[in-house]
């Protein structure tokens, strides 16, 4: 197989659910941006919903998709006998999935830019930094999903972990933001606000800590018996 075929194959293997989710969200965002006023939504509310879709919903989709990307292959026993390690197959699939979600999220942020909605979101950055609004939490949750799925060997446990972290961060905003250590890890620093001047640090910390999460998953992914015994979906 040529490398391009491999990538195309992985694109199909990510599954229709993971592929259709992000564009569906962007479509909803575009519709809300165009018809929000007609529906009776105040401008500030529309801007909040649009930015929320980008910073909250997009990372949730990415994290859940990453958490359920492991071990879904048929005849995984055969794949494990190939010279190509299963680890690189999974990482290739994740890269395809994350790239596709990133493309959609960039389109989503274009919707906000075109409509001039960023100006109505308090605490929103300007320029290229707006891409960090979705990039940092999405990467972090995807890394967490990968680690959880490699550690538990079960998509159910991994998706539950991602879901739980997401909901907890939504519910316990004040508690998590009151301590500097957890404030830097807070996923929704744009929408829920943070201490002035902390936003960039928060994004950098999220991006940097995603790397050790993936690194922790790396050795776990190299042990085929974990993949074979796991629950599929």
């Amino acid at each position, binding site marked *: 197989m040529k490398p391009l075929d491999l990538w195309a194959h992985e694109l199909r293997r990510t599954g229709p659910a993971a592929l259709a989710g992000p564009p569906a969200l962007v479509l909803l965002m575009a519709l809300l941006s165009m018809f929000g006023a007609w529906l009776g939504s105040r401008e500030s509310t529309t801007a909040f919903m649009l930015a929320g879709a980008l910073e909250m919903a997009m990372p949730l989709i990415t994290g859940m998709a990453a958490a359920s990307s492991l071990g879904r292959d048929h005849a995984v026993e055969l794949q494990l006998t190939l010279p190509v390690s299963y680890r690189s197959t999974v990482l290739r699939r994740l890269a395809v999935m994350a790239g596709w979600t990133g493309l959609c999220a960039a389109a989503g942020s274009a919707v906000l830019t075109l409509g001039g909605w960023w100006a109505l979101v308090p605490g929103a950055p300007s320029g290229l930094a707006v891409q960090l609004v979705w990039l940092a939490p999405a990467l972090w949750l995807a890394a967490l999903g990968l680690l959880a799925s490699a550690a538990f060997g*079960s*998509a159910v446990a991994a*998706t539950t972990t991602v879901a*739980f972290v997401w*909901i907890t961060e939504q519910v316990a905003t004040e508690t998590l933001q009151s301590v500097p250590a957890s404030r830097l890890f807070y996923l929704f620093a744009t929408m829920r606000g943070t201490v002035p001047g902390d936003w960039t640090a928060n994004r950098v910390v999220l991006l940097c800590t995603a790397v050790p999460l993936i690194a922790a998953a790396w050795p776990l992914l190299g042990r085929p018996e974990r993949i074979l015994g796991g629950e599929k979906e």
Partner: protein
Amino acid sequence: MIATLRYEFLMQIRRPIMWIVYGLTYITLVAVFWPAYRTLSFTDDGGHDPKLAMLTSAKLIMVLLPIVYGCLIADRLIRDRRLGVATIMDASPADPFGRLTGKYLGVCAATAVPIALAFFGRAVVYAMTEGKVEALAWSVAVFPTAVLPGLAFLGALALAGPLLMPPLPFRVLFVAYWFWGNLIPADMMPTLSHTIFAASNEYVAYGLFGQTFEGLAYGPWPDAALNALRPVASPAVAVLWMGVMVALTIAILLITRLHAARSES
């Protein structure tokens, strides 16, 4: 039905992953709600009233743990199909609706066990630290009225939901539903939260157990949409909420059965 119930219950309760995930999430729950979970009170009264403390305990548990509960139930019904044994099961003489009911009851009961353990465990700890044994009686009264109806409905929803769509989008939507329909303040956007259709609300606490907050009635929110679904709390409304939850549960199970019957033919 009983055989299915027993089998599904044991299968779920012996799943190590369930206990691991519940354990981790319980630790997180205690950590993020620490001062309130220690005193079992959101105010400065110290949580010395056992009735209010048990209601607060139920409320805290129902904020985060239902997410785990729903996600863990979501793969149970479609499992038979994925393993390719659904058709064999259908060919057995067992009544299909009985099997579905047994599966529902068994799975939900097993997945609710950790929630019950967390709740009653906290009640025992409270009874010992505060020296008030009546807290145990209150906990026995609060759990079936304030927690179980919501769990019954969520269990049916999570069991049947993945029939309509793959488990991945279902879980994403379930999380979004839980946040939108149960946790956000009612005046933030049109939402089901704090209505009699929300799986986690305080109608039982305010209506049945007479909890009060600064003399305000629980019910309609100022400037919130869908206030028609938020009657002022009273014992009748609390019972109505339980009835709505049970009715929704039965409706979902019946629709699931009809769906299965249609795909059989």
